[in-house]
């Protein structure tokens, strides 16, 4: 099962804003250029791209949780 990893350390978010729906839900189709979450660091939000195609399996890292570079954020099948 391919993993989507965090390219950098920071705080991971599942949705573009607290009021919004998550970028992806289990069962959603994933294309390489799709944004699956945001990592916030140094007052900047960085979009995390899937970089793979498949079906979204779910988030591994929690919403608004700290992540390290290389941590698995989500799974795609």
């Amino acid at each position, binding site marked *: 099962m391919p993993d989507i990893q965090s390219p*950098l*350390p920071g705080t991971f978010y599942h949705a573009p804003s607290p009021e919004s729906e998550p970028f992806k839900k289990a069962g959603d189709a994933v294309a390489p250029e799709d944004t699956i979450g945001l990592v916030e660091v140094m007052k*900047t939000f960085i979009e995390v791209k899937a970089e793979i195609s498949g079906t979204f399996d779910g988030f591994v890292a929690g919403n608004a949780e700290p992540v390290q570079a290389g941590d698995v954020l989500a799974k795609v099948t």
Partner: protein
Amino acid sequence: MAIKVRKPGLSTSIQDLGRPGYFHLGIPEGGAMDRAALRVANMLVGNDEGAAGLEAVFMGPELEFQEDTWVAVTGATMPILLDGEPREGWTSFPVRKGQVLSFGFLKEGARIYIAIAGGIDTPAHLGSRSTYVIGALGGLDGRPLAADDILPLGKAGDAAARQVDQALLPAASQPVELRVLPGLYWHRITEASQERFFDEEWTVAPEADRMGYRFRGGSPMEFVPREQPFGAGSDPSNIVDGCYSYGSIQVPGGTEPIVLHRDAVSGGGYFTIGAVISADMDLIGQLQPNTRVRFVKVDMETALAARKERRARLQTIRDALAAT
């Protein structure tokens, strides 16, 4: 001849050792957040230690070389790839025209330093090539690197295969200990609050950047009551404006301490409880968000001894590399 930026990374900027002498005019010293790492990277490729290199935070850039040269990467631990083949950190290696330097995921630390033989030869502003983004000064048009930028290189000196003995590099403790000299406004917080500041564990906040490193997790400061002097704001953390030093610790609202770093403002209206000693400032440049930190109280004598020891360690590396 030059280097082409294929991907800039998160925030990669041209940095040298900075532009001292203008802080009183509000222009920070700037320069590498981990000065020793930049110095050593330059030594490895035969440059003057103050030559301009690249500082990349959390993510490496992707660079295409338009000439044969030598490169060294120091600072944070991040896999180094030349045309996809691994290269070692703290080691100079030859790069041929057309080859591409890229990086894997950050493993330890926060900032890598990339030195190229001859150094990056953008114009100096106020005596330095360092990029001060907030002031749009230095570097390439005063901004971080962007895709398709071309970085001009200076004339290479004595480049050769060199490697730093890893035993000569300082090992970081966990939690990281930052030594602090209490300062001008230390008396503004109660004795209990002073003790708590050193007893409690703090963590690096994700907002930490080149201007300042913010810490959270400890208790709010408890102020000694006073009537705010004329000209100071109403919050007890406010003072009538004062000067800030490199390393000084301000605590806006008494909640989250901020250690001012290379691109910090030179003055303002927050009280500063003290300063992180100069010997530990490079260490801060390598802290990732959420790293656990303790502040350790020291006196001036200890601070000066630490600075001397740090210089001696750098001299040992300098001597070892000069012999190769």
